[in-house]
C-alpha cells in the first residue's frame, strides 16, 4: 500500500493464543510501540497455521507474514509448535526455492512474558519488509490496489 508516496507494507501476524498473543497484549500494556502495519490474527496454536493462510495473505495484498508461537517445549498443547516448526521450515524453503524473497516470511517464538521481544520483533520485521518493497512475486494482480 502507498501512503503519500511512501511504501507502507501490509503485515499479517498470526499469534498463538497462549504465548504470543499474550505477549502482544503485554507489549501493549507496557506501551511498547510497533508499526500499525502489523495486524494480528489470533489462532489457538502455531500448529493451526495452514500454509494456505500464508499464501492467501500474499494473494490478498500482504507484503509479509509472520507466525509467532510459544517457545519450543512450552507449547500449551505440548507439541503444536514442533509441528509448526517443521511445516514452516519446509514451506519457507520451498518459497525461497521458487525465488520468492525469503525475508517476507518469518517465525518467531514469543512467550507471554516477552512483550519487549514481541515489539522488537515486529519493528524489525516491518523494517525488513519495507526494505524489500511491495510483494510482487506472490501477488494476485486482481487484488492489487495500485
Amino acid at each position, binding site marked *: 500500500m502507498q501512503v503519500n508516496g511512501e511504501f507502507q507494507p501490509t503485515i499479517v501476524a498470526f499469534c498463538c493464543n497462549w504465548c504470543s498473543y499474550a505477549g502482544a497484549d503485554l507489549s501493549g500494556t507496557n506501551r511498547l510501540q510497533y508499526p500499525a502495519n502489523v495486524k494480528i490474527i489470533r489462532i489457538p496454536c502455531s500448529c493451526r497455521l495452514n500454509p494456505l493462510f500464508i*499464501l492467501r495473505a500474499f494473494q490478498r495484498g500482504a507484503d509479509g507474514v509472520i507466525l509467532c508461537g510459544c517457545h519450543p517445549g512450552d507449547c500449551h498443547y505440548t507439541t503444536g509448535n514442533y509441528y509448526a516448526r517443521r511445516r514452516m*521450515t*519446509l514451506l519457507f*524453503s*520451498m*518459497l525461497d526455492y521458487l*525465488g520468492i524473497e525469503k525475508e517476507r516470511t518469518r517465525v518467531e517464538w514469543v512467550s507471554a512474558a516477552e512483550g519487549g521481544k514481541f515489539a522488537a520483533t515486529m519493528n524489525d520485521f516491518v523494517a525488513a519488509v519495507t526494505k524489500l518493497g511491495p510483494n510482487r512475486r506472490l501477488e*494476485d*494482480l486482481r487484488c492489487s490496489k495500485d
Partner: protein
Amino acid sequence: MQQGLKEKAIQLLKDKTVDRVVGWKAGEFFYDLTPAVFHTPEEIEKDFVFSVFSGANLSKYLIAESRKGGKVAAFLKPCDTYSFQQLLKEHRILRENVYVVGVQCDGTCDIEKIKAAGCDGVTAVREEGDGLVAETLYGEHRMSKKDALLDRCAVCKSHKLVVYDELLGEQGEEQDAGRFAEVEKLERMTPEERYSFWRGELSRCIRCNACRNVCPACSCEKCIFDNPDSGARNKAAADSFEENMFHIIRAFHVASRCTDCGECSRVCPQHIPLHLLNRKFIKDIDELYGEYQAGADMDTKPPLMDFTKGDADPSVVYERGGDKA
C-alpha cells in the same frame, strides 16, 4: 519378460488366486499402452503388454480395485511398490484383496523424447543391442536407449521391490543416481534466476490436473482445489498467483508422503518438471530431519507428522536457502 508376466497372469486367473489382473493393455501404436483390468486368460493373451513403455504406475488404481470385491493381481515395478506401500500405510488400499507381483525393471521410455529426437511419424521401435531403432513414416532412426528414458528412470532411486507377494526376476538394490542434481542446480541460482525459471515453467500450466489425478499421494476423496468450501478452489489459473499456489500447495500436501515416483512429470502435457518441487521437499527433509524415503516401510512416521525437540528453526532457511551463487 513380457511372456513371463502373461503366463503368471494367466496362471493366477486360472488357479483362482485372483479374479482380476491390473496390467498394461496394447494400444493403437507400440507405445500407447493403457492401464487396464483383465478378467480372462483370453484377454491377457490378446492384449496384455509389458514393455519399455509400461511406465504407468498402477498402484493408484488399487485404491478402487481393492474395494470392488474379489481379489485383484497387480504388476508393480520397483518404484510402483513404494507408492503401493505408502498407500497401504495410509489405509487407502485393502491389502488382503491385492496380490502383488513384483517385476524388476531397467527403465521405461518416453515416447515424446523419442519423437523429439527427430523420430516424428514413428510407427515402431525395436531394441537393437543397447540402442533403439525407430521406424518412422520417413525412414528409420537410431538412438541410444539412455536418451529415450523417462527423466525419472534416468536417475532411478531404487530397483528394490519393497512389497510383493511374488517376485518375477531379481530383487534389486536402492540406487544413487544423483536424482537431486537438478534441485541443487536450482539452489545454486540467485532468487531472481529461480523466480524467472519457475515462472517460465509454471506459466505453461494449463491446470488439466493430470499431475494431481495421476499422483498416488493425491488420492483425496475430494481435492481442496475442487472443493468450494476449502476457500482454495480454482478451476483454472486465472492469475499467475494461482499457478504458483496450486503447485506449491500440491507439493506441500504430498510432502513427506511423496515417494518420488515421477508420474507427475511423466504425464504433464506441458513438460513442466513438477518432480523438482517434490524432490526439493524430499531433499530438505533428508538434510534437516534425516534420510527418509516414503513408502519404504510400513511403520516410520512421515517427517511432517513427526518432530524432534532439536529440529532446526525455520530461520535455517535464511542461511541454507538458495542464492549460493
